[in-house]
């Protein structure tokens, strides 16, 4: 059953130390990638959904106090967070007569929050790109090493028969397969997340001045 030479256990048990290390690295890469994928998928989906709902409410209501109160319901949205940071800065202003000074301070606070939100959105995503780029090469390294050992064994046994060559190459190719299995979902997720993050960033850049104007022009 499990002692089958062609099974997974047979391949792993016959593999060399380097190949096993490569496989373990790729396994950890895959685990982390999938964790990031799951984490970011939920995070970005919530952010997009709450930002859209907040914008709808923001353009419906002209009172910033009411908007701020409503924004407390959208804790995971990027735009509500930026709005809250601007509102906090606006309320912190002691002298509201100096409009120019107030605008500068509120704009600065909003920009800082936008930057923070951009970092928060793109956090962990580059790891997916790293996995997508390096995992195939790491797997290829394991394959090359395995084939190297296989040819070395062929030289030792002085037999070039298929029975002597095929098992070693099969074991070595497992590393490439594992690298591809880790890289393919990472690349797909990276492309999807990058597209969603760019959408949110564009919204932040476009609506941040709107927030500042809303605070300044508040009656």
């Amino acid at each position: 059953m499990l002692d089958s030479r062609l099974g997974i256990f047979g391949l792993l048990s016959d593999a060399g130390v380097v190949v096993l290390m490569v496989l373990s690295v790729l396994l950890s890469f895959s685990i982390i990638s999938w964790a990031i994928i799951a984490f970011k998928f939920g995070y970005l989906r919530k952010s997009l959904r709450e930002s859209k709902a907040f914008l709808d409410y923001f353009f419906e209501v002209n009172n910033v106090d009411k908007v701020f109160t409503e924004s407390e319901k959208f804790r995971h949205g990027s735009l509500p967070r930026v709005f809250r940071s601007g509102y906090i800065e606006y309320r912190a202003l002691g002298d509201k007569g100096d409009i120019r000074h107030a605008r500068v301070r509120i704009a600065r606070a909003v920009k800082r929050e936008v930057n923070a939100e951009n970092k928060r959105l793109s956090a962990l995503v580059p790891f997916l790109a790293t996995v997508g780029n390096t995992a195939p090469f790491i797997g290829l390294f394991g394959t090359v090493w395995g084939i190297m050992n296989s040819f070395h064994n062929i030289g030792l046994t002085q037999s070039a028969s298929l029975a002597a060559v095929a098992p070693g190459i099969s074991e070595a190719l497992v590393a490439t397969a594992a690298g591809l299995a880790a890289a393919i979902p990472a690349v797909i997720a990276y492309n999807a997340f990058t597209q969603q993050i760019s959408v949110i960033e564009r919204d932040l850049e476009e609506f941040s001045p709107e927030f500042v104007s809303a605070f300044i022009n508040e009656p």
Partner: protein
Amino acid sequence: MKKGQYRLSGEKKFSYWLACAAAMHVIVFFLAILFQLWDAGRHAEPKIVTVTLVSLPGSGASREYADHEGGTEAVVTPSQPSPPPPAVKKLASQPVQAPVPVPEKVSVPPRQIAIEPLKPKPIEKKPDINQALLRLKQNVDKKMSQLPPPSTTNLSNALARLQQKVKSEGGATGTGSGRGQGSSSAGRNGVGRGSGGGGNDDSYKARIASIIQQNWSFSKQLLKNSYGMEVYVRINILTDGTIRQILYDRRAPSEYLNNSVKKALEKSSPLPALPKEEGSRDVWIGFVFTPEGIE
């Protein structure tokens, strides 16, 4: 404070998803193993099912025997040469149920009557064949003993004829009259033309004829009929007696006779050297081979 709490909750969420991913990999690994086992089970060789074919005594020839014996009760079932494949599968899949109907049918008492006659049949056949062979051998021996040996009679006949020829020709040369006592065979050989030197030639012919006759192994009984069984052969003999060429002037319908003649001639070569009277030239001598002998 809030940021710190938010970050903490975010880290917790990520660690949660990390654990989930690890668990997912473990599950995938075990699923791969299960798939491997399932695949191995799917391609595994099926269990060997031993099916014993039981020939029921009431079927086939035993039925006829039962009819001969007047025991119509011995007929168990109508003849069914081979059960259909699904029935075999059912027998293999339900081995307990399959044998149940068989004993019911076998338990019919006339079955023993059907089995018994099968044994004596081969026992009776063997003595019949042996007895027939013995009878044939005895008949052949009787006939062979009744008939005189063909080779000796043929040889004696040929020798007697040749002696008669020699005598008649010798008398002709001695008297110089040529009375014409030669027989029909003498005439066939062209003897009696008045040449004085024919005596030695015929004696040489008689010698080689006797030699060929001795080397000729032929049985008249092996021929279906003796009609037209004559082989006219001419042989070219060199001075040293070697047969250089054999020519068939006329072949017999039986190849057995033709071949036996050829073998006899080949076996007889080399013949005795030609007489000095013939000179240094080779001679052609003709023979007529019949089942009765050489003429």
